[in-house]
């Protein structure tokens, strides 16, 4: 184990801002990509549903 306390862990031997700045931004960007894709999927699905209803009405 490298750390004797959580304060020491977050300080990262004086490099805390650089290490956490890297990992923090990475996590934010990955989550943002995932959330944006979910939105894109919902938008695409509602569009497909609309087209599907149109097809159904045409065939009737």
């Amino acid at each position: 184990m490298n750390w004797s306390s959580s304060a020491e862990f977050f300080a990262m031997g004086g490099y805390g801002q650089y290490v956490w700045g890297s990992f923090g931004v990475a996590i934010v960007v990955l989550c943002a990509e995932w959330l944006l894709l979910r939105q894109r999927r919902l938008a695409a699905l509602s569009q497909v549903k609309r087209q599907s209803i149109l097809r159904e009405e045409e065939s009737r």
Partner: protein
Amino acid sequence: MINWFKYSSPKMFYPLAGKLIPWFAAAAAILAIIGMYVGFFMAPTDAQQGEGYRIIFLHVPVSWMSMFIYLVMAFWAAVGLAFNNRLAAMMASALAPTGAMFTFLSLWTGALWGKPMWGTWWVWDARLTSELILLFLYIGFMALQSAVDEPRRADKAGAVLALVGVVNIPIIYFSVQWWNTLHQGASVSLTQAPSMAMIMLVGMLLMALASWMYTVAIALMRVRCIILEREQHAGWLDELKEVKQ
């Protein structure tokens, strides 16, 4: 024997991709957690760089991915162009934003590592500049595709750009050997023993595997969106349970 060609149509691929996504996403999460545990709690402090070197567990995997995704993207673009295959072209489009994101992260983590170790966020040397060009190639690919209204023509234009841009990948990879630079040489190479402690290497490889799994999951999610957007007039979509409800 599975007939793989069956899955080269959007209609057959869409449900298969849907089944695969949770597995790749779960693998990515598990590997990332183990990788970060190894990186922060098992790997020892570096003799020269103290704790600051731990950025390596992020920087190296995202940098590998930024280059590797470009090669995969160019491969699918080439398949799409050569065989006039829609799904392959969609796959190339699906990979570009994630490649751009990893390239940004490579530059970002590199800057945050460069500042304490080199004393500067950025230098215009070969490694950093060629990586920045990679970001512009991804952005150019996406911009070109969205500028062309007709999807099949957009695929072809994008594919040509992607293939021309492949020349940049060996330039990035070998830049630290070909030119003088602040950037250190490769930590891991195919021909030599790695120049780092075993446990650090294990942590880095775990994070690299996690990035792979993440990329597969997110690219499959995006290609499903692209299929829905482009095929919205196709009758087969009516049979999907997410459309029926």
